[in-house]
C-alpha cells in the first residue's frame, strides 16, 4: 500500500513539475500569436477550382484536381458504367426480410436491425453452462513494424449452412456454423497502407439474386465494401467472384472522388440492399483538411454492380457520376455508420457525420449544415432525401452518428402502431421518429446553446433535446467530480478542469484555452447501436461517459507540431494524423485533442462509471427498467496495469448487444475483455467469460444442429487499448460441443 502511494506521490510530483510538458499540445493561454490565416468569408470559403493556384505550404495537401495516388484504385479496375434506376431488376425476397428462426442473416439480424433473436435454448438458467465451442483465427493483426490500427469490430452473419464473416482486412470467409471449420476463404489483398483510422470490417451482406437462377453460382452472394474502397460480390456457396457484378465481381468506389491517397477514405460497414440497390457510404479520415474527399453516398445495382445514383450534398440536383476531371463535392459530411434499408418505404436511413475540418464550421455551406449529424432518409430510386432529421446543429463536437438506426412499431393511442425509427446519438439523446416523415413521435425540446468562442464561427442558438426518452448521459461535470488514485492526481485534474472552458454539452470550441466536450465523440451511443426486443418492448442501450479535452490551435502552432493532412506529399505515417491532433488544413485552425485524462497514469480525470447499460420499456412510457455500470476494473488501472478487481466500475465500452427470446442479453464491449449474459428483465449478470482479446464488436447468436451458439469477435480495439487478436470465439452448451 505504502509503496503504491509513494509511486503515486512520485507521479504527482512529476506532474507538478511539468503540467504543461505532459500536455504540450495544449497551448497556454495567449501563446502562439494570432491565427496566421484570415478569417474566412465570401471569396475564400469555396472549394478550390481547377485553376486555383496550389497551396505551396509544406503542410498543405494537393489540389482536389491532382491525380489519385497509386494504390487508391486498389485493384486497378476500369470505370463502372451507369444505369437508370428503372433498369434495376425487381428484388427477390431476401433472407433478412423474414429471417429463419435459426439464422442471423444481416448485420442487425433483420431488415429492422433489431438484434433480436427468437432462440430460447439459452435462458438465464441454461446459460450458466455455456462453454467455448470453437475459435477461428482470421489472420489479420498488426505485424512487426506496423502501427496498431486494429479493431476488427466484426459481426458474422449466419444463413443456412454458413457463418459468413470478414477479417479486419476484408478477406471474406465462410465457416461451418457448428464446427468453425473454414469452408472457403476469398482473400482480397487489402494492404496495410489502406487502413484509415482503424482496420475494421463490421460485416458482410447476404443478397439473393432475382436474375441468376437458383442452381447457378451467385444466386446467393456475399457483398462487402472494403477498406480500400472496393465493392465486392462473391458466390455464397464457393466464394468465387461473381463475374456479372462490376468487373469480375468488383467495383472501384474511388471513381469520381478526385484526389486522394490510400487510407484517406474507407468502408467499414456492411452496405444494405434496398429494393435491389446496394447503398454504399464511407468514412473520411477526420480532422485532415477542409477539402477532403467527398462524403458522397451512392447506389449501385446489386445484380450488375452498375452505378445507379449519387447523393452529393454539394450538387444536390446532379445524381450522376462525375465525368472527365470533375469529382463529387469535397469536404461534405461523411457517413461511416451502418445504414438501415426500408424496402417498404423505399428508403435508406443514412446516419451522417459532420463536414471535413470537424471543429471549425465557419467554412461550411448551408447545404452541408442542413444534413450534417442527422439521419437522412434517401429515396433509393433517385438518391434524393425524402426527409432529414438533424440531431446536432452545426456540429463542432464530432457528435457524428455512429449507430445503426433500428425500426420498431410504436404503439399509438389507437390500435394502429406508428412505423418508428429509433435514432441513438453520441449525445445520449435518443430520438424516436416516424419513419415515413422523419417527424419526432416523442417530444423534442429546443434548448438554448452557448454562443461561439472564435471569430467567424457562430454557433446555433438552440439544440434539440429528446425529452421523451431517458437521457443516456451523466449530469454536467463539476470540479468535485474529478477523480484519481490520490489527492495528487485529483488535484492535477481539478486544475485541468478549471483551466478549460466548460458550459455544458455544447461548450463552443476555443482558441484561448482548452474546452471540454462531454459526452464527447466517444460518449453516448456509438456504432454498437441498440438492440430491441419486439416481444417485450425492451430497448437495450450501452453507452459511454468519457469526455474529451480539446483546443483549437493556430496554424503556426500546428505547423510547429508538424501537423499535416494525410495526403500532404511530406506526410509520414504516425506524424500526427489519425483522429487525434488534426491539421484541419484549409481552415484557420488545427485541433489538439485527447481524452480528458491524466496523461501520466492514463486514467480518465473524472469519477467512474465510464460505461453503462440501460434497459428502456418502450411500450409503457419509455421508463428505465434497470441501469447499471458495465465492465469491471479487472483489466484496467493506473498506467494501464490490470488491477484484477471484480469491482463493476463501469469501463468505457465499444460494441453492442444482442437480445433473445430466451430473456438474455449478450454483450462484450467493455474494456475488461469479458463477454456477459445479462437477464433482460432484471439486469443481473447471469454468465460471463474472459475473452482472449478485447470484445469490441457486436455479438450475434444462431442455431446449428439444433443447438444455440453465441459468437463474438474478440479483436480488441487500438483506441480502447484492449488486446488485439484475430480470434472469433463461439460459445455453446456442452451438449452441442459433443456432436
Amino acid at each position, binding site marked *: *500500500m*505504502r509503496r503504491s*502511494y*509513494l509511486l*503515486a*506521490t512520485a507521479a*504527482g*510530483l512529476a506532474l*507538478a513539475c511539468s*503540467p504543461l510538458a505532459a500536455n504540450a499540445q495544449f497551448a497556454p493561454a495567449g501563446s502562439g500569436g494570432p491565427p496566421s490565416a484570415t478569417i474566412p468569408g465570401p471569396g475564400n470559403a469555396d472549394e478550390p477550382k481547377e485553376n486555383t493556384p496550389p497551396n505551396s505550404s509544406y503542410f498543405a495537401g494537393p489540389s482536389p484536381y491532382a491525380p489519385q495516388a497509386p494504390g487508391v484504385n486498389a485493384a486497378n479496375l476500369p470505370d463502372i458504367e451507369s444505369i437508370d434506376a428503372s433498369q434495376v431488376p425487381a428484388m427477390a425476397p431476401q433472407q433478412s426480410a423474414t429471417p429463419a428462426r435459426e439464422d442471423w442473416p444481416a448485420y442487425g439480424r433483420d431488415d429492422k436491425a433489431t438484434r433480436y433473436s427468437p432462440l430460447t435454448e439459452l435462458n438465464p438458467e441454461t446459460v450458466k453452462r455455456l462453454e467455448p465451442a470453437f475459435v477461428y483465427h482470421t489472420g489479420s493483426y498488426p505485424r512487426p513494424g506496423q502501427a496498431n490500427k486494429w479493431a476488427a469490430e466484426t459481426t458474422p452473419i449466419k444463413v443456412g449452412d454458413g457463418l459468413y464473416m470478414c477479417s479486419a482486412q476484408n478477406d471474406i470467409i465462410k465457416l461451418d456454423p457448428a464446427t468453425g471449420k473454414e469452408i472457403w476463404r476469398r482473400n482480397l489483398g487489402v494492404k496495410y497502407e489502406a487502413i484509415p483510422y482503424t482496420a475494421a470490417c463490421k460485416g458482410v451482406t447476404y443478397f439473393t439474386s432475382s436474375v441468376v437462377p437458383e442452381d447457378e453460382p451467385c444466386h446467393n452472394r456475399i457483398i462487402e465494401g472494403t477498406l480500400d474502397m472496393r465493392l465486392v460480390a462473391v458466390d455464397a456457396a464457393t466464394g468465387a467472384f461473381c463475374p456479372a457484378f462490376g468487373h469480375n465481381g468488383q467495383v472501384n468506389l474511388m471513381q469520381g472522388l478526385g484526389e486522394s491517397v490510400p487510407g484517406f477514405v474507407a468502408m467499414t460497414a456492411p452496405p444494405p440492399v434496398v429494393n435491389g440497390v446496394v447503398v454504399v457510404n464511407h468514412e473520411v479520415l477526420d480532422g485532415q483538411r477542409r477539402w477532403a474527399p467527398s462524403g458522397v453516398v451512392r447506389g449501385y445495382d446489386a445484380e450488375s454492380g452498375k452505378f445507379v445514383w449519387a447523393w452529393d450534398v454539394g450538387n444536390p440536383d446532379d445524381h450522376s457520376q462525375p465525368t472527365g476531371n470533375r469529382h463529387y463535392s469535397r469536404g461534405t459530411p461523411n457517413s461511416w455508420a451502418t445504414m438501415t434499408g426500408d424496402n417498404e418505404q423505399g428508403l435508406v436511413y443514412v446516419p451522417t457525420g459532420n463536414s471535413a475540418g470537424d471543429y471549425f464550421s465557419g467554412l461550411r455551406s448551408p447545404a452541408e449544415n442542413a444534413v450534417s449529424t442527422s439521419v437522412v432518409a434517401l429515396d433509393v430510386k433517385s438518391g434524393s432525401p425524402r426527409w432529414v432529421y438533424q440531431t446536432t446543429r452545426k456540429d463542432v463536437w464530432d457528435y457524428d452518428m455512429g449507430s445503426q438506426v433500428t425500426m420498431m412499431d410504436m404503439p399509438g393511442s389507437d390500435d394502429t402502431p406508428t412505423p418508428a425509427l429509433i435514432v441513438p446519438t453520441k449525445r445520449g439523446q435518443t430520438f424516436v421518429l416516424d419513419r415515413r416523415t422523419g417527424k419526432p413521435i416523442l417530444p423534442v425540446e429546443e434548448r438554448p446553446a452557448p454562443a461561439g468562442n472564435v471569430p467567424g464561427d457562430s454557433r446555433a442558438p438552440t439544440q434539440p433535446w429528446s425529452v421523451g426518452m431517458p437521457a443516456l448521459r451523466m449530469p454536467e461535470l463539476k*470540479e*468535485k467530480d474529478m*477523480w*484519481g*488514485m*490520490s*489527492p*495528487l*492526481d*485529483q*488535484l*492535477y485534474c*481539478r*486544475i485541468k*478542469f*478549471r*483551466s478549460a472552458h466548460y458550459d455544458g454539452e455544447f461548450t463552443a470550441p476555443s482558441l484561448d484555452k482548452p474546452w471540454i466536450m462531454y459526452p464527447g465523440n466517444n460518449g453516448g451511443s456509438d456504432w454498437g447501436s441498440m438492440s430491441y426486443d419486439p416481444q417485450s418492448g425492451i430497448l437495450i442501450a450501452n453507452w459511454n461517459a468519457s469526455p474529451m479535452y480539446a483546443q483549437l490551435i493556430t496554424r503556426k502552432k500546428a505547423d510547429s507540431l508538424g501537423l499535416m493532412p494525410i495526403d500532404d506529399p511530406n506526410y509520414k505515417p504516425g506524424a500526427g494524423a489519425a483522429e487525434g491532433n488534426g491539421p484541419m488544413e484549409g481552415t484557420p485552425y488545427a485541433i489538439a485533442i485527447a481524452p480528458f485524462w491524466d496523461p501520466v497514469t492514463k486514467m480518465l480525470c473524472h*469519477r*467512474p462509471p465510464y460505461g453503462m447499460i440501460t434497459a428502456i420499456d418502450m411500450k409503457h412510457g419509455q421508463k428505465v427498467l434497470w441501469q447499471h455500470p458495465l465492465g469491471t476494473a479487472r483489466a484496467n488501472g493506473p498506467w494501464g496495469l490490470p488491477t484484477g478487481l471484480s469491482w463493476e466500475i463501469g469501463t468505457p465500452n465499444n460494441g453492442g448487444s444482442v437480445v433473445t427470446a430466451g430473456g438474455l442479453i449478450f454483450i462484450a464491449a467493455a474494456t475488461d475483455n469479458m463477454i456477459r449474459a445479462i437477464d433482460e428483465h432484471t439486469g443481473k449478470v447471469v454468465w460471463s467469460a474472459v475473452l482472449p482479446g478485447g470484445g469490441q464488436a457486436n455479438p450475434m447468436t444462431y442455431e446449428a444442429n439444433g443447438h444455440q451458439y453465441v459468437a463474438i469477435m474478440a479483436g480488441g480495439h487500438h483506441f480502447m487499448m484492449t488486446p488485439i487478436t484475430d480470434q472469433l470465439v463461439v460459445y455453446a452448451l456442452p451438449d452441442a460441443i459433443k456432436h
Partner: protein
Amino acid sequence: MPITNNRTLTEWLTLLLGVVILLVGLFFVIAGGDLAMLGGSTYYVLCGIVLVASGVFMLMGRTLGAFLYLAALAYTWVWSLWEVGFSPVDLLPRAFGPTILGILVALTIPVLRRMESRRTLRGAV
C-alpha cells in the same frame, strides 16, 4: 539540528516520511494555489500549508510534525465528507492515501519522542 552518528533505521524512515510529507505539502501549496486562483477549491492550498509545516517539524525531529499531519488528516476527512458524503468511490482519491500515510505517521510518534528526549538530554549536558 545536531547530526549524530547513531541514528537508527526507524529514525531514517521517519525522516524519509518527513521528506515525503514536505514534498506533498509543497505540491499542495503550489498546485493548490493555482487551483484556488482559477476559482477552484481552497482545500489543497490550506492543507498544503499545514503539510509543509508538518514535514519541516518532522525533519527537525519534533513530535509536533506528526501531530500537524494528523490535524491535516482530520481536516481532510471533514472536508471530504462535506464535499462528497459517504461515497466510497469519491472518498478513494481524497482520503485513502492520506489515511495510509497517517497510519505511518502515527507509528513515527514514539520515534520522534525518542529523538526529542535525546536532544533534550544532550541540550541539558
